């Protein structure tokens, strides 16, 4: 009796396994990347059942440089140039929070004029990054005009930053204690002119891209990341704000002079790919507004850089400071043991945090939605790998 029962259960088990195998056989595994699925080497594998994605496994690390380890071998100032390599298009922001953390550890007071200048540099840089991101989003969806326009307009802002810092993309401009050099003659007028022009262009972007039925159909209602899930997954930046959470570090924890600036946190409540594509545009518009105020309120003269010791060091301690970058909160956790070199540096980047939402959103989506979902996450592979 029991023998028979055993045989029956064994048969059932085998039967179930065969069914499972057959189900597995239905699936096809596709490898996306690592040859630049957008920008930066990144690979993820998806399993598809017909048209639908049933499994997604991200595999980052193709551009891992060991930035955190490299930091332990250089002093606080020497770390600046290599730390901006993970995201060269947003290099003022990635060194901004590092500078804030070092200033807290070494106890440096930043001159007021320097605080304005580096806020201007980081606002301009955020726009440069967002335009680059938007250009790639355009080409992802086969909209080549949207690739050309932001790439062209980005040049204007890059020219501004070149005049300001001397370099097109890797500025090494925000340093502990202020900025590297003062603004050039005539910068203010030039900046105001180009920001005004740029604001007009944003309107045109909206007409040609965001009101385009092609974009609307491919993104509206696609890959909804609910508010609860967004909070649970701990996503940040435009992804979070597109899910209805008005959270921006510039408002939540104002650094430098951001508490004197009047601006709104832009967010949307539709939680879909379209919202994630549209919030960065709203952010750029708000950023133009911020730059005008910064230029207006900036002191006409004054120091731009605090005097530093040759090898600045502070007492042993630790600091965690963050800024709002193009991809969301960018935090540095620095442990100092009292020497001029950091004992441990951990960079908490927005891209790495938003990566968790990729499998969450892709599972259950159609394969055709993959590009629009992936790039809407504002994911920068090089920054995530560090």
């Amino acid at each position: 009796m029991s023998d028979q029962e055993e045989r029956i259960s064994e048969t059932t088990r085998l039967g179930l396994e065969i069914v499972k195998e057959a189900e597995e056989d239905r699936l096809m595994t596709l490898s996306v990347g690592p040859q630049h699925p957008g920008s930066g080497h990144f690979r993820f594998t998806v399993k598809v059942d017909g048209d639908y994605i049933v499994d997604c496994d991200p595999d980052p690390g193709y551009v891992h440089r060991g930035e955190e380890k490299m930091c332990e071998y250089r002093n606080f100032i020497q770390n600046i140039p290599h730390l901006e390599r993970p995201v060269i298009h947003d290099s003022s922001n990635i060194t901004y929070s590092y500078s804030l953390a070092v200033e807290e550890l070494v106890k440096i007071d930043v001159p007021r004029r320097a605080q304005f200048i580096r806020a201007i540099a980081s606002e301009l840089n955020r726009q440069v990054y967002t335009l680059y991101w938007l250009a790639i989003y355009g080409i992802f969806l086969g909209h080549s005009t949207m690739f050309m326009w932001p790439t062209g307009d980005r040049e204007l802002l890059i020219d501004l930053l070149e005049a300001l810092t001397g370099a097109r993309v890797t500025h090494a401009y925000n340093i502990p204690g202020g900025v590297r050099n003062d603004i050039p003659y005539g910068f203010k007028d030039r900046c105001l002119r180009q920001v005004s022009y740029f604001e007009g262009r944003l309107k045109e972007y909206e007409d040609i891209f965001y009101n385009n039925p092609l974009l609307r159909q491919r993104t509206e209602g696609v890959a909804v990341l609910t508010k609860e899930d967004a909070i649970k997954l701990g996503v940040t930046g435009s992804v979070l704000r597109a899910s209805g959470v008005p959270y921006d570090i510039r408002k939540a924890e104002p650094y430098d002079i951001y508490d004197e600036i009047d601006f709104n946190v832009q967010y949307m409540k539709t939680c879909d790919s379209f919202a994630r594509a549209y919030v960065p545009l709203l952010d750029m518009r708000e950023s133009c507004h911020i730059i005008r105020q910064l230029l207006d309120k900036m002191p006409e003269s004054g120091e731009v850089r605090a005097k530093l010791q040759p090898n600045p060091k502070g007492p042993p301690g630790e600091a965690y400071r963050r800024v709002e970058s193009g991809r969301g909160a960018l935090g540095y956790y620095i442990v100092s043991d009292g020497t001029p070199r950091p004992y441990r540096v951990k960079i908490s980047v927005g891209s790495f945090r938003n990566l968790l939402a990729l499998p969450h959103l892709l599972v259950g989506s159609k394969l055709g939605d993959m590009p629009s979902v992936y790039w809407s996450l504002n994911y920068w592979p090089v920054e995530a790998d560090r």
Partner: protein
Amino acid sequence: MSKSNGSPSGNDKGDVASIVASNNDLPTTSVEQGETGSSIASKPSSSSAVQLKSEKTDLPQFERGIVDGLVSKFGNSIKIIYIKPLRIKIEVPPKDIVEVASHIRDESGFDHAESVSATDYPKTGDIEVIYHLGSYTRENLSSHILALSTRTDRDNARLPSLIKVFKSVEYHERESFEMVGVYFDNHPRNDRFLLPEDWADIPPLRKEFRIKGR
């Protein structure tokens, strides 16, 4: 959620001399309290989260209140490392960390982890894992970071994972596993993530790992 805490706690702690813990008398940072408080109050809170009344609280007092709530619940298993404006750091023994983290999530209101980092301290023979927790849902906590830290033996680095409490730690813990070599119990994948698949050396953020030529 059992109440059986507090009594067996504090036995295995106290022998760990940490670099950071010995400096909890650091002067506080120069973050302006009044400024931050007022800017939170002036936030365009078009969402319905206007229920907070005490936006003008004295913030070091406010942070002390958060810690006091934890200490009254868990007793001396919580070691306060520092309380600075907007930043709190506490240390708990590994066996209590899941329970303390659940309490922090449910009662204190910190709902996600911004960063998880592991630091190697060969001098004291241990590894510190620190979770920087933030809050999106509570407006009066949006500028605060609660650093929840714990320590484990560096020769047998093993800690309970917080993935059941904070889903957002998943990739951060996985990164800590491969970079510093801390095994997280109950984590679904203690696995390669950023390093090459054929990596055959010690975890690179351990202090005895040297960059070649340096």
